[in-house]
């Protein structure tokens, strides 16, 4: 019987080797800070913002995977739908961003419920592969429907005036839409935490996740709870889609593109751990933004130009994943590893 707990940080188990790694990372960051202080601050804040975007997208996936045991490959498609519903509401129907921010996620939630009721609910007791394949099929269907309805060309909506400028944070400037995304993401994380950990509803869901049959015997209406959790996961994906679509634009491949990085976040954080997804999202965000800077500073200091690998940024999430899984196959805070 495992004695680990999803609530312990797991860092106490790190060996002296682990401490050395952390020390080395801290040293590298200090070098970068010393060489380019202004840029370091910019990138640090940028990494935080990007990380929170990843958290928002990964959270819904993490909920559905952790609670329902379904690898919801369609999560990326739901995210994409959030963006396209935003386009429909804002660009085609002329509604304001704030309406889209509320309505689009609810519509995505509805699509999520349909998915769960029509398909996935029948697969809870099947091997995980069945759910994964079904979700994958749904993802393709949604993607093709999106193509058919809104076309292949990348689209965008005008960022609402208040969010279109940059925000001056004294140490750096950040696009306001990004900052807004961070605030929304933080609220969503907090809300999900409170719902799952601090409410009776959340408690009954957690119980059902551990032993659905027994929870049923005890009189807990699990099907209704699963639908609600699926709705919630889809709504969160939709919120991510609205914000991403407004900040960056939408294309039929955005779902595919994001589902991968989202899996990386969930795996690094540890399957089944919401907290892990949050930490992993921030970690990867920071790593993506700071690694190139650190390498460049290091190249400056040592004079070894080869250290500043061009284009390393795109590889960083996967490097982080490999490193974390090598040290902790179950991810940072996971119960059972994907790889164990």
């Amino acid at each position, binding site marked *: 019987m495992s004695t680990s707990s999803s609530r312990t940080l797991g860092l106490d188990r790190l060996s002296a080797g682990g401490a050395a790694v952390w020390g080395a990372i801290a040293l590298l960051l200090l070098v970068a800070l010393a060489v380019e202080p202004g840029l370091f601050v*910019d990138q640090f804040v940028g990494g935080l913002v*990007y990380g929170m975007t990843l958290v928002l997208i990964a959270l819904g996936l993490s909920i559905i995977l952790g609670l329902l045991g379904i690898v919801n490959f369609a999560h990326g498609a739901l995210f994409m739908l959030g963006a396209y519903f935003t386009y429909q509401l804002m660009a085609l129907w002329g509604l304001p961003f704030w309406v889209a921010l509320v309505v689009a996620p609810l519509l995505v939630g509805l699509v999520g419920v349909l998915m769960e009721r029509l398909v996935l609910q029948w697969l809870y007791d099947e091997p995980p592969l069945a759910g994964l394949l079904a979700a994958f099929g749904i993802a393709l269907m949604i993607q093709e429907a999106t193509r058919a309805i809104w076309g292949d060309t990348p689209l*965008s909506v005008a960022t609402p005036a208040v969010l279109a400028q940059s925000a001056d944070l004294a140490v750096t400037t950040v696009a306001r839409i990004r900052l807004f995304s961070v605030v929304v993401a933080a609220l969503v994380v907090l809300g999900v935490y409170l719902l799952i950990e601090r409410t009776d509803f959340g408690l009954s869901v957690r119980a059902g996740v551990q032993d659905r049959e027994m929870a049923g015997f005890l009189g807990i209406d699990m099907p209704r709870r699963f639908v609600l959790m699926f709705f919630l996961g889809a709504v969160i994906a939709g919120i991510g889609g609205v914000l991403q679509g407004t900040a960056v634009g939408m294309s039929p491949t955005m779902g595919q*593109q994001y589902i991968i990085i989202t899996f990386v976040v969930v795996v690094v954080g540890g399957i089944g751990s919401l907290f892990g997804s949050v930490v992993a999202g921030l970690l990867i965000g920071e790593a993506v933004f700071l690694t190139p800077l650190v390498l460049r500073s290091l190249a400056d200091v040592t004079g070894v130009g080869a250290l500043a690998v061009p284009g390393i940024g795109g*590889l960083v999430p996967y490097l982080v994943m490999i490193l974390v899984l090598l040290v902790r196959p179950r991810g940072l805070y996971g119960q059972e590893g994907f790889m164990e």
Partner: protein
Amino acid sequence: MPKITRRRALEGLGAAGIAGLAGCSSGPGGEGSGSGGTTTGSTGPMEITLGLFTPNSGAFAPWGPSLETGTRLAIQDLENELDVSVGLEVYDTKTDPSGALDAMKRAVTADGIDFAQGGINSSVCTKIGTWASDNNVSYIGQGASDSLRGEACQPFMYMVYQTNHMMATTIGREMADTTDNWYVLYADYVWGHNAEQVVTSAVEENGATVVGKDATPFPNDDYTQYINNVANSDADGVALLIPGPDASRAVKQMRNQGLTDITIGAQMLEDMVFWGLDHEAAAMVDIASMGWVNTIDGVGDFNDRVAEAGELDPFVRHAKSYTSADQHVRAAVRAGSTRAEDIREELEGHEVQSAAKDIHGGGEMYWRACDHELVSPVFSATAREASAMQDDPYKQWFDVTDTTPGDDVVRSCEETGCTL
């Protein structure tokens, strides 16, 4: 119907066209109805089946419909003007080159196409072009990569799109003329690395400086960290050597992040990818090198015909597809044959005189024998003010500021590394 077309052809040809018409009756360099005699004499119109390879799925799917529209317009004009009947078979190049290759094999062996065209990314062009050449099928592609007219060139493969090198050299010169300190963002794959080298050397040769550069992942949609790098440098201009949709995202994010004073230069910009942006964001592009743009003088009614016929507003791929079909069929008619050898003989060294030349503004365009490049002018353009952007009946967002003759920026035959 033939009457109208005849008139249109005459109108379109202009002064240079008359010379061309005069030539058509005699010289092999001319184009026109006369020289297709071998087939027309005995069996009625010459019959040609053209295979078009177009991306209808995958990352390039947004471009797909434009290839077909451009090709069909050309066929319409050709059939009206020449004694020829052109059948069109359309194939999806799928998302990967091997899917495209399968389609090419099927097209040639099962469907019996006479020659092929289309393909917009270099990996697809290389794959299907190589196979076509190996099997004696003539193929005109639209890849911009230099390797297609370098180490990967093929005896029966031709390219209608201005090369990456030509575009990068043009934008590099423009950049140096515009402002002094540049930051270069380039896509982290072969195309981007090549462009970065060419642009950097063009900028420096013309007296300006590249103060910093970053390779950006592709595809990518968060450019914040690169924008941070730009903002923290001494640059007053930023060059985007990034494929279209990503470049438009980068521009939008610069605007959102408040980096609005900086000069933006974009290499090989296809305005279609900017049409998804709002006017204000698109208006931030100061200088761009383009293979074609619908505000070129002399484009005539081509824009209206595209707008009527297709789902996409007129942009470079319409013009290039039109040109491909126009040149391919005319060469076959002149040769009286669709054999790859015969078409090659017709195309090599041939100077374009048809409507394809007019829609490109009338500048010199010719098929270079050494690498099978259709040497064409490169257009420099700038985005209009947001308020001046036209959306109906089709979008016109960019204006031409300069036209650089192809010969000024094309690599010399020796530099290409192609030995045809």
